[in-house]
């Protein structure tokens, strides 16, 4: 009887030991999640090649009678942190261009033939998309993981990661990132204000995989303050072929308008 009790106690201790050690062996830490965010940034950054795509933005707003559609050709050279966007639609804005080099951004108006300096934090014409959203992602450098929990988003097991901006100049003070546990792909980001109010939710429902890169081919930006206000961004005609250096210049935008 005594031996049976001792055996049971040992078994219980052994089980507890294995449970704890195995759990700690598989548990993820804040630091590891920070690395996964860096991985996510890396996967959406095209440092070794150029990136070109056609981007369609469909915006809905309670004040619109019908959705507004905008279309752009985007050229990115993430290695130099450069980007050019040329408006294709609507017809009335055709030829308008945006040039970004590092933190500087200019808008070109073909009618006045003038470049105007603008900021990355401004929204793209009448949409819920910020200029900043069109550059290479820097979530891992802009935010620190301050906590996480596990959960489910639709059919996927996810880490729900609490992020805090590293300084006061990052557009959103706090974010919550929903990252798939199996492949560490971001599915959703909730952006909060300094007063901790949800401002915007960004959904990444579809991705395309090219080599080791993941491209969010559909992104939905939902304004959480104004009901019914959102913009859906879809990417197509994606190419990683080299783009001539001349494209990333003001002269190029001027030239295509001649």
């Amino acid at each position, binding site marked *: 009887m005594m031996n049976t009790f001792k055996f049971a106690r040992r078994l219980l201790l052994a089980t507890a030991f294995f449970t704890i050690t195995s759990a700690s062996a598989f548990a993820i830490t804040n630091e590891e999640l920070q690395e996964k965010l860096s991985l996510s940034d890396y996967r959406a950054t095209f440092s070794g090649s150029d990136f070109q795509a056609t981007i369609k933005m469909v915006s809905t707003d309670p004040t619109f009678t019908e959705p507004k559609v905008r279309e752009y050709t985007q050229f990115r050279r993430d290695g130099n942190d450069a980007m050019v966007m040329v408006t294709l639609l609507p017809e009335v804005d055709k030829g308008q261009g945006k040039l970004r080099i590092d933190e500087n951004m200019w808008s070109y108006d073909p009618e006045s033939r003038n470049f105007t300096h603008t900021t990355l934090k401004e929204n793209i014409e009448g949409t819920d998309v910020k200029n900043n959203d069109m550059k290479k992602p820097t979530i891992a450098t802009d935010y620190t993981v301050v906590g996480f929990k596990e959960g489910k988003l639709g059919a996927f097991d996810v880490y729900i990661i609490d992020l805090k901006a590293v*300084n006061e100049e990052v557009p959103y003070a706090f974010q919550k990132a929903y990252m798939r546990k199996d492949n560490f792909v971001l599915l959703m980001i909730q952006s909060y204000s300094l007063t901790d109010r949800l401002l915007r939710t960004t959904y990444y429902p579809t991705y395309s995989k090219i080599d080791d890169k993941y491209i969010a081919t559909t992104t939905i930006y939902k304004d959480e303050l104004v009901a019914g206000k959102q913009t859906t961004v879809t990417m197509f005609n994606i190419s990683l072929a080299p783009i001539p250096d001349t494209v990333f210049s003001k002269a190029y935008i001027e030239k295509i308008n001649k």
Partner: protein
Amino acid sequence: MIVRQIALRNVLRQKRRSLLLIAAIAFGAFAITLLTGITGGIEGNTRGNLTNLYGGHLYIRGVERLETGTLIQVIRDETPLVAAIDEAGIEVESVLKRTSIRGSLIMGSFESSATIMGVDWKEEALLKERLPLVSGSFDSGMAENSIIIPEKLALKLKAEVGDEILARMTTVTNQNNVVNFIVAGIAKDTSDYADAYSYADLDYTAKALNLQPGEFQSLNILLKDADSTDAAAAILQETMAKTLTVSVRPTTTDPTTSTTVATGGETVTSPVPATGKTGGMGGMGGMGGMGGGMSSLRSSLGTVAGVSGVPGATTDAAVGKPIYSISTINDMMKTVDNLLSILDSIGKAAFGILLVITMVGIGNTFRMMLLERTKEIGTMRALGMQRKEVLWVFLYEAIFLGLAGSLAGILLAFVIGFASQLLPMSGINSLFLLRGHISFVIDYVMVAIVLASLIALSVIAAFSPSRRASLLDPAAALRSTH
């Protein structure tokens, strides 16, 4: 005496012709008097509205560089500024702290761009006086997050007193933020310009901009004598420069010219004033269809009143060491003054053309009169009238016509001008109006100039035919068949 009587009789004898001449002269007098009266009213109203809106004539703003390199607009401690104001000895009516948020207000599905002025309600007696409320009140239940919104904005948002609304904005470092407000009052739209402005508690707006308690963005000084604005700004700037780093006000109208920074007697010049971050999201749009000039005004208003840019903030700003700049109501008025001076020049050019046409008309009429009265002149000369007296008969006629025409025109302008004050104006930016009405301000010097110049020009136009009349030979004149 007899000469003036004959001249007056002649004017009255040909009533229709005299009336036509008087009408032509009156039209010129009317146009220029009305135009100067209205532009004077616009200038006065704009100055008054802006003074009320920004709570003063002088605006001190502080710019500070953060460790990240970003320039922000903030005044952390007003003590040295208040000491400088005292030391400068300028006569001050009030000194008010303000913050400014540009962003949008949201209620349900409705969103509208707005600028929220952060004010210290305890100190803003003048604002309360000049901001009549259609509902709610300043005193009952003014909580920390109370907001006074203009009527048009309330209509857009479908908001009523007691409703909770959200304000979306960016902090001084351009981070997205949102705070909630409770509508405590809805202000009457006495000014279209002010209707873009809502008013809320200073500390609450400072917190929304991510400033610390007690910090604000501009110190606005209401002077006892508005005419001393520029002199007061110069004295204050000199006094502040003794102990503080002060960005010297550009002397030219071009805000992109170099900015000099005075530091305790030293001056530093920075070639390009950097644009700092002051909070807000822009999106204010135009000012109600006033065109490019108004966009420019918007820009200068924003710049001077501390809504957007930070003129004078220099790349030399050191971390944690504020640079102060002083701007005045007159800086803001430059754009309005430019617009008005263009309007004034156009008016004066039109007046000049009208004068030339009228002079030609008067000259021709007097030539006709000379022909018609040749026999009469001969008779008067035969009866002993001197050449000089004949000349003066004609000249007095011109004086009477000029006097009657200009007086009629000026009086008509007064009637129309004052009557127009009674009509509510729509479609005109109310920055130019006083409580929704146009103002007509009489410029007595201008009236005197118009009166004198029209009489003088009538005399000049009539002089040549009058002289020819006076030189007529009496016998030849009597033989004349005219």
